[in-house]
């Protein structure tokens, strides 16, 4: 079994042409990137705004509840609903899953941005304003850098979600690595299915690893391992806690 998968993965025919692994991989990455950019453009400002203004928190709850919707169902429902709209164009295949994936990517991105900005210590925000930062400066120089760890955590879950769902979206005839899984299933070619599954798994692990690395690089060391160091300085709880003024 494993040898047949290995044979499939290493066959030269697999590495060139329109159905080749490089093309499929590129299709997959490109689609996921596009989805994430659109979703982030919507979710990040919205999440930061909700946390900042303290209004519209119900949106966060709705987004969280939306995670219960089966992605497969949403894919089919939207594909069906839009089936007449782009007849004749290749867009007919691409647009519905793109929309569904944007919808699915928004909840984790929104939650990350909201929680990140919400978690900024009010004293820090107060100090920033009191020192003469304008609203925009407070957001750029203080709130966003402090929110970065949680924003990036949201990005990590969203990208996993998108990579996984774009794989499933292959049932709607879009490109990407999911083709191998779905086409292999249709032609009862287990080697192709499993080979594709390995590729998808490796892609997901690599992307997650890269984002984890990015998180390490761009998040200030002052924010990571913060609890550990505070514990080491040994400030007694009573003095570190906030007396009611």
């Amino acid at each position: 079994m494993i040898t047949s998968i290995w044979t499939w993965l290493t066959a030269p025919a697999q590495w060139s042409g329109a159905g080749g692994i490089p093309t499929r991989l590129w299709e997959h990455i490109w689609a996921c990137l596009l989805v994430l950019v659109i979703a982030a453009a919507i979710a990040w400002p919205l999440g930061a705004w909700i946390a900042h203004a303290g209004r519209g928190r119900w949106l966060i709850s709705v987004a969280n509840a939306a995670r219960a919707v089966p992605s497969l169902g949403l894919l089919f429902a939207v594909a069906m609903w839009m089936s007449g709209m782009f007849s004749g164009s290749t867009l007919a295949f691409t647009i519905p899953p793109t929309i569904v994936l944007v919808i699915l990517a928004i909840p984790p991105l929104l939650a990350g941005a909201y929680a990140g900005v919400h978690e900024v210590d009010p004293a820090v925000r107060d100090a920033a304003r009191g020192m003469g930062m304008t609203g925009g400066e407070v957001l750029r120089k203080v709130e966003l850098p402090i929110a970065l760890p949680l924003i990036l955590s949201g990005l990590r879950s969203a990208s996993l979600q998108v990579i996984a769902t774009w794989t499933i979206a292959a049932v709607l005839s879009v490109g990407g690595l999911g083709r191998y899984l779905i086409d292999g299933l249709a032609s009862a070619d287990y080697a192709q299915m499993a080979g594709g599954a390995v590729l998808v798994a490796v892609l997901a692990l690599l992307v997650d690893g890269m984002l984890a690395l990015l998180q390490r690089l761009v998040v200030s060391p002052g924010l990571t391992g913060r609890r550990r160091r505070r514990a080491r300085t040994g400030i007694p709880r009573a003095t570190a806690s906030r007396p009611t003024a």
Partner: protein
Amino acid sequence: MIRFEGVTKKYDDSIAVDHLDLEFPDGAITCLVGPSGCGKTTSLRMINRMIELTSGRVTIDGRDIRDQPAAKLRRGIGYVIQHAGLFPHRTVVDNVATVPLLNGWDKRKARARAHEVLELVGLPGNFASRYPAQLSGGQQQRVGVARALAADPPIMLMDEPFSAVDPVVREQLQDEFLKLQGELGKTIVFVTHDIDEAIKLGDQVAVMRVGGRLAQVAQPAALLADPADDFVADFVGRDRGYRALSFADTPSLPLASEPTIELGASVDQARAATSDRWLLVVQDGRPQGWVEPARLTGPIEADSLHRGGTVARVDGPLRASLDAALSSPARRGVLVDHEGRLVGTVRAHEVLTAIEQTDRPRSDDEASGGIRLGKERG
């Protein structure tokens, strides 16, 4: 000079500050003190427009604070808050350099200035590259003060800056703060709920009551000696008579010369030096502690000294002189000059006599009444 003219802050259903008229003199520390809900923090935050006032006027050097954009106003006013509010993602030096950078300084100059100010608040260079989470509460507060001082603003607003640290560190921070203010001479508005802190730090203390009204504004000594009403008297506390001595300069006390012995002297030398039970040990003219010559078994060592007694400066407050006398095992208070050299000793009853002869800022009736009562008992 910061001046409040009929300043009122109303919220939908309550009044936080009610027609406040108050002046904050240049180069002085004005403490706003009062119970929670008295509007002291609101008053402070109206100065840098963190809270906008409802009616009335706040001026700085005659200029209405609303004449310029809030952000620009704030960059010229230092701001220190209870939990420091340090930026957790920036190192200590970058935290301190914030306002100079906002003011458009180049990065090198801003950092050089930050190092300078950190030195000023007693944080040596190796703290500069740490992150706030690596500092103790007291150190964070120092960075908070340094950050407010970085752009050298003439005015500092301090909202309970020392109340979140433990009492020992707080006292240390207060002392250093007073020393620093002695050098810098900023105009400081200092909010606290702790009357002792207000009395210790303030050149002027404004006591506020719930509802945002001013109960009394006075110098600390006057506040202790002559509270305007029951509320202030209650708030100032019970042993205010004793605490008021902190502000009474020691008059010329009848100093006795004290026999002394150098550290390291032998038993015989010590026994020859005095006929009293207790003997004062000095080193280079500076008092070190007391010994009982009769109990000595060998040369006088630093370890064997009785160090219970406090030492007061001859030009210091009466409270310190009295404390020196009361705490000395020999019942003779040790007084030193500004370099810490022995000037002489004084007994408690002599300090008390001096206290009774001091002019107290209180009506003659009460003062004489007090003395008469004492005499009847004696």
